[in-house]
């Protein structure tokens, strides 16, 4: 495959940045998108140019580290992660535009790498459960209905990639935050911090500068894990009830 890549290059956080066009040849349809980027970077390295910086880790679709806004979609044309996107999703001769996630709360570090530390801080604010140390409790000690377990698990599949933020016209982090609030709110282990969790995580999400939700559903359509909007409704319920009932004046 012969392709033309239009890639966002930006030296550092304060650099203005611009698109740079790179022609590339000899790409196999079996390569993953990131492997195609590796080929480009090898060519750049041979030429003595600065390789294109991009995030990745597991390359198995489970860590959420890979990003890239490809031809107007986070993670490209398929509802999957960029590492699981294959070049067979493109045609010979295509021009592919590659940009970083765009959000005030995801500042560009270099090229296509953005700082998603804001997500970590939302988790730190309340996305945990307190567990006593001591003997390991029996796994089936607390009965949980199958339907609830499944729903909590669905929410827990969020890999924190930030595609929802990248896709949203408001750069809202509500799909992510709601998945993280939901996975614990539904389970018995999550009850202890249930109210403070909703209050603190929403407050942190707002403090990071993410937008609000207009319920357009762009996040759900682009989420590689199929996290659904029902999570956002649940987060709103959790937040309203926590605001009314909690002792935090």
């Amino acid at each position, binding site marked *: 495959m012969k392709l033309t890549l*239009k890639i*966002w290059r930006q030296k550092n956080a304060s650099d203005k940045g611009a*698109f740079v066009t790179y022609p590339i040849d000899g790409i196999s349809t079996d390569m993953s998108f990131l492997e195609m980027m590796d080929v480009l970077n090898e060519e750049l390295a041979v030429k003595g140019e600065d390789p294109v910086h991009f995030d990745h880790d597991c390359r198995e679709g489970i860590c959420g580290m890979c990003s890239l*806004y490809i*031809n*107007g*979609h986070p993670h490209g044309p398929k509802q999957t992660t960029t590492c699981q996107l294959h070049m067979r999703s493109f045609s010979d001769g295509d021009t592919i*535009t590659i*940009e970083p996630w*765009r*959000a*005030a*709360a995801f500042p560009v570090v270099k090229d296509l790498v953005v700082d998603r530390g804001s997500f970590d801080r939302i988790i730190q604010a309340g996305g945990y459960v307190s567990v006593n140390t001591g003997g390991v409790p029996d796994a089936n000690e607390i009965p949980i209905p199958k339907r609830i377990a499944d729903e909590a698990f669905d929410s827990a599949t969020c890999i924190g990639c930030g595609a929802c933020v990248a*896709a949203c*016209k*408001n*750069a*809202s982090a*509500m799909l992510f935050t709601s998945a993280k609030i939901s996975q614990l709110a539904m389970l018995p282990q999550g009850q202890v911090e249930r109210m403070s969790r909703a209050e603190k995580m*929403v*407050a942190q*999400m*707002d403090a990071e*500068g*993410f*937008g*609000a*939700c*207009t*319920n*357009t*559903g*762009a996040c759900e*359509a*682009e989420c590689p894990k199929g996290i659904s*909007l*029902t999570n*956002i*409704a*649940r*987060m*709103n*319920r959790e*937040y*309203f009830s926590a*605001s009314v009932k909690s002792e*935090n*004046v």
Partner: protein
Amino acid sequence: MSWVTKTLSSTIGRKLIMALTGLFLILFLTGHVSGNLLLFKGDGGEAFNIYAKFMTTNPAVKLLSYLTYISIIGHVIFSIWLSKRNKSARPIGYGVSTPPSTTVSSRNMGILGTIILIFIVVHMQSFWAQMHWGDLPVVTYDGEQYKDLFSIVTFAFQNELMVIGYVVAMVFLAFHLSHGFASAFQTLGLNHAKYSPAISVIGKIYCILVPILFASMPVYIYFTQS
């Protein structure tokens, strides 16, 4: 900040206000359109004028009308507040943005709302302000005097521009509600396997039926009263 202001100024709280005021305005529109159906009665405006007097004098209706004013003002102020925040959440946009799988209405609620706001201002100036403070002709039914709002309405809708403007505004209202109706329930957290499908169907019917009924009034008057 107290917990109330903290909650209502959060992104979710601001949306709560949008949803509650929006739903109240939907209730208001339902009442408004039902009452105005009296324009179709063909009795020279008697029923409509009696209704108009009731609507401006009855104390219970007064209370509702204050709630309506507050809802409009609240909805607009919070929409500006939200839209500003949403804009600043993405200071640098994308080079390429293919239209996503979302609806045109959901992506343009602010623009649709702004057009509706312009309509509301013109509309209130044409009829609401006239009814309250205008020098209206007076008619007498059964020995009681009534302001003849009907004559003002029929006169206004002899003008093609007014009629076209009203019909167009109702198209925008339809689009605003095609997203807004169901969206408000989602914001309130009412997303449920049993009820959401029904809410979505009712929303679709509502966003078509109510604007059509409203739009048919100027059109009907234009063709029957000239």
